[in-house]
C-alpha cells in the first residue's frame, strides 16, 4: 500500500546497520525518528519521543511482540507501543506517530511527513513491505 505522501524519502542507513530487534535513531526532516528491524526482517519507524517522559528515547527500548504485534517498550517506564500503529498498548489514548519506512537497494529509507497525527485513517508503516534486498 502506498499513501499519498507529501514528503520525500530520506535514506537513514544501510539495512545491515540495523541489528534485528534493536533500534536506531535518525534525523528525518528535523524530527527524531526511531527505526527498528523486527525479527521477520521488516523495518518500522515511529517517533522517538516518549510521550510519558518527554525524553527522546524510544529507539533504545526493547523490541518484542504482544499477541503477535511487533512492539517496543519505553526504556524509561516500560509502556509498550505498537510498531505498526504507534498506539500505546498499556495506556489507551496515548500514541506516537508512525512513519513510512522501506528498504531500497539495501538502504533503509524513511519518509518525513509534517503534521503526522492528523493523517486520516490509521497510519500504516508502509515499510512492512518485506525486504527485497539482502
Amino acid at each position, binding site marked *: 500500500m502506498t499513501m499519498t505522501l507529501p514528503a520525500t524519502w*530520506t*535514506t*537513514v*542507513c544501510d539495512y545491515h*546497520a540495523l*541489528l*534485528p*530487534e*534493536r533500534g*536506531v*535513531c*535518525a*534525523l528525518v526532516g528535523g524530527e*527524531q525518528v526511531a*527505526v527498528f528491524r*523486527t*525479527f521477520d526482517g521488516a523495518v518500522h519507524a515511529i517517533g522517538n*519521543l*516518549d*510521550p*510519558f*517522559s*518527554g*525524553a*527522546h*528515547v524510544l529507539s*533504545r*527500548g*526493547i*523490541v*518484542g*511482540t*504482544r*499477541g*503477535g504485534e*511487533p*512492539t517496543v*517498550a519505553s*526504556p*524509561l517506564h*516500560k509502556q*509498550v507501543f505498537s510498531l505498526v500503529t504507534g498506539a500505546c498498548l498499556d495506556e489507551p489514548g496515548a500514541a506516537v506517530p508512525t512513519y513510512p519506512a522501506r528498504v531500497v537497494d539495501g538502504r533503509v529509507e524513511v519518509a518525513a511527513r509534517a503534521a503526522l497525527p492528523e493523517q486520516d485513517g490509521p497510519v500504516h508503516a508502509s515499510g512492512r513491505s518485506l525486504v527485497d534486498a539482502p
Partner: protein
Amino acid sequence: MSRVVVAGYGPTAHRFVEALRERGFGGRITVIGEEPRPAYDRVALTSYLTGASLADLTYEVPEGVETLLGTRVTGIDRQARTVTTAGGATVPYDVLVLATGSAPFVPPVPGAEHAHVYRTIDDLDAIREASDGAAEGVVVGGGLLGLEAADALRGLGLRTHIVEMSPWLMPRQVDEGGGAVLKGHIEGLGLSVHAGAGVQEIVTDAEGRVTGLRKPDGTLLDAQIVVFSAGIRPRDELARAAGIDVGERGGVVVDAGMRTSDPAVYAIGECALAGGQVYGLVGPCNTMAEVAADRVLGGTAVFEGADLSTKLKLLGVEVAQFGAMSGALDVTYMDPVGGVYKRLFISDDARTLLGGICVGDAAPYATLRPFVGKPLPAAPADLLFTGTGAADLDLPDEAQVCSCNNVSAGAVRAAVADKGVTDVPGIKACTRAGTTCGSCVPMLKQLLERSGVELSKALCEHFTYSRAELFDIIRVRGVTTFSELIAHHGTGRGCDICKPTVASILASLHNGHVLEGERAALQDTNDAYLANIQKNGTYSVVPRIPGGEITPDKLIVIGEVARDFGLYTKITGGQRIDLFGARVEQLPQIWKRLVDAGFESGHAYGKALRTVKSCVGSTWCRYGVQDSVGLAIALELRYRGLRAPHKLKSAVSGCARECAEARSKDFGIIATEQGWNLYVGGNGGFKPRHADLFASDLSTEELVRTIDRFLMYYIRTADRLQRTAAWIESIEGGLDHVRDVIVNDSLGLCAELDAQMAHHVTTYEDEWRATIEDPEKLSRFVSFVNAPGVPDPSIVFERERDQIKPMVVTP
C-alpha cells in the same frame, strides 16, 4: 490530641505503640522502660547466648515514639494523671498503659539471693559471666522456661541438672506419659532430671559463692550456678499502690477492653489479669496490645481470652499441646524407642476433638489445633498422623490458624480471594499470620494450595515457565541464544520482561559479553549502553571503586573526566562516584579515559553485584578486629559482573560496631575476634530489612565458599526481580533450607555451584574495556544513525549549585 504514656517497654508495649502508630494515632506517645534498651524479642532470648547480637533481637522504636530508657516508673498519681519515675521526673498522661510484664518467682529458701533468674538480657549477661570457670549448674523449674534455661547452661558448657517439683517435666503442657518420653530425650542429651524434688537451700562457701543446691531429702547437687525458673508473678505493684484493682493472686484486673478499674488506665501483657487469667505467652499479649490500641482510638475491640496452645522445640525436642488436657475418650500413640508420644482427647460421643499432646513429633499440631471443639475431621487414629501427608483436612473458616496474631482460616482465604494474594509472603503482609513464631506457615501454604487460585508462575505471555524453570532449561539443554529458547520453549518474539531475564540467565551461566551478537538485543537500555538511563535520556557513569578504596590519582582522573565532559558528580551510598548527564555518543569517549586510567565498569546499570562497602577496619580503626577493607575489595573483585535476578549489595564491617551497615545488604559480613559472621537477606529501599545471621566465626576461605554457594543457589532458583530477602522467604523451609543446601550439601549441589562460580571468576572480563576495543559494538553509541556528529538537540541543562541539571520538558 491526647498523650499516651506506657509504663514498661517489653514486647507487649512494643506491639501496642506499633499498633497505635499503624492505626494513625497522632498524639504524643511516651514509653518508659526500666531496662536500659528498647524492647527486644524475649521469646528468642536464648539465642543471645548462641550468637545472636543484641541488635538482632531488639525491635526498632516506631517513628514518633518517645522513649525513656533505664527509667523505672515508681508511682501513679491518678488524680493529677501523672506518673513519677525513679529519677524524680513527673510525666503527665491522658491515657496510661501498664505493660510491666512479670518477674520470675524466686522461692524464699535460704541462699536464694545468690541465685540467678532468666528473663532479661542483663540476666543472661550475669549468667554468662558466672559460668566462667563453673563446671555445673542447676535450673530450678522444669517447665517451658526452665528447660530453655537448662539448654542455655548446657550451651555454656556446664553439666546441668533440672529440679522440678512436679512428678514430671512440663506439667502444664504434657501428661505423665508425655513427660516420660520428654525425660528420655532430655537425659539422652546428658542433662540430669530430678522430678518430684524441691529445694531445701542454696549452699554457699564462706565468700558467698554458690557451691550447690540441697534437696529436701538432704542430697546435695554440686553447682556453681543456680537459676530459678519456677514460675512468674505479674508486676502489678504500681497498680496496687495506686489503688487500682488487682487479683487475689496477682495481676491488674482488666475488662474485655483492657481497661483497669481506673478508666484512664489500661493494662496489657503479662501484668494483666483478663477474664480471671494471667497470660504468659506472646500470642495473647499481642492481642491485648491490639485491643487496647483500638480502644484508645475509640474502637470497640474486645479480648475474648486466648488459646494457650503451645508448640515449641526445646533442646531439639518438639513439644505441643492444644485444647484440653483430658477428655472422656482418648487415642494414644507411644513409641518409646523413637521418642514419640501423641495423645488426642475426644468427647464421650467420640465426635468432638477436645485437645491433644505431642512430644517428639508435633506435626499434627498445626492441622488439628483449629479443630478443637469441632467435629472430628477424620478417624481418630488417622488424626494422630496428620501433618505427615497421611490425612488431608479442610479447615473451617472460623478456625484459628495463627495463634500469635489471632488470624483465622477465613481471613487467610479472604486475603487470597479479595486481595489477590498468591504466596506466603503476601499472606504475611496482608494478615500478619505467620510473622511471629512461624509455626503456622505450613498451614498457610496448604490454604493457598487449596484455595483454587491458579498460581501462575508464567514469566510473561511468551513463556509459561518461571525464571527458575527457564534457568534449568537453559542450563540442562545447553541453550545459548534467546531465539533458540523461544522457538522451542516459548511463543512470539519476547518482550521487555522475558528478554532481559533470559539475557541475565545467559550471562550468569556462560558469562561472555552482554552485547555480543544477538544478546545485544535482549538487554534493557541500561545494559545495552552499559550505563544508567536518567529521566532526560542521558546516562550516568559509575566506575568501580572496590571496597570504596581509591588513590588520590584516580580520584583526580574522575574529577578531570567529569570536568572535561561537564558531568554532574555525586557520591553514592555505595562508596563510589556517579557521573551524570552523559549523552550516548559521549559514553565511549568517557570510558576510554577511565579505562586508560585503570578503571573498569562498576555494573551500576546491571542486575548484578553493585558494591561491597567497607569501613576502614583494623588497619586504622582502634576498635577493628579484622581487615574489612581487604576483604571487601577481594569480594567485590570476585563477584564483579555477576548477573543475578536482582541487584546485589554487600558490605564488610571491621567489628561489631557495624559502621559499614552490612546488615542492610543482601550479604553482609561483620568481623569477629575469630573470623567473620555472615548475614544474608538484608536490604534497604522500599521495605528495609535486616539480614539474618547465616554462619558465625568463619575463616576467610570458609566465608568465600559459603557466599559463592549462596549467590549461585540464589541465581539458580530465584524469581525475576526477587531480591535475596524475598527469595529466602519464598523458599520452602526458608533460611534453614538454604543453610542445609549450602553448608550440609543436602541436595548434592555444592560441587556444581562451586564450579559455576569458579567459571564466573575465571572468565570475567571488563565489559567497557571490551566494548571500546570493538568497533562493531562502538558503532551503536551514536546520537543519530544518519548524523552521528550531531548531539541530540532536545537534551538541555540548566545550572544549580554550580553543576548541570536536566531542564524539565513536560510532555
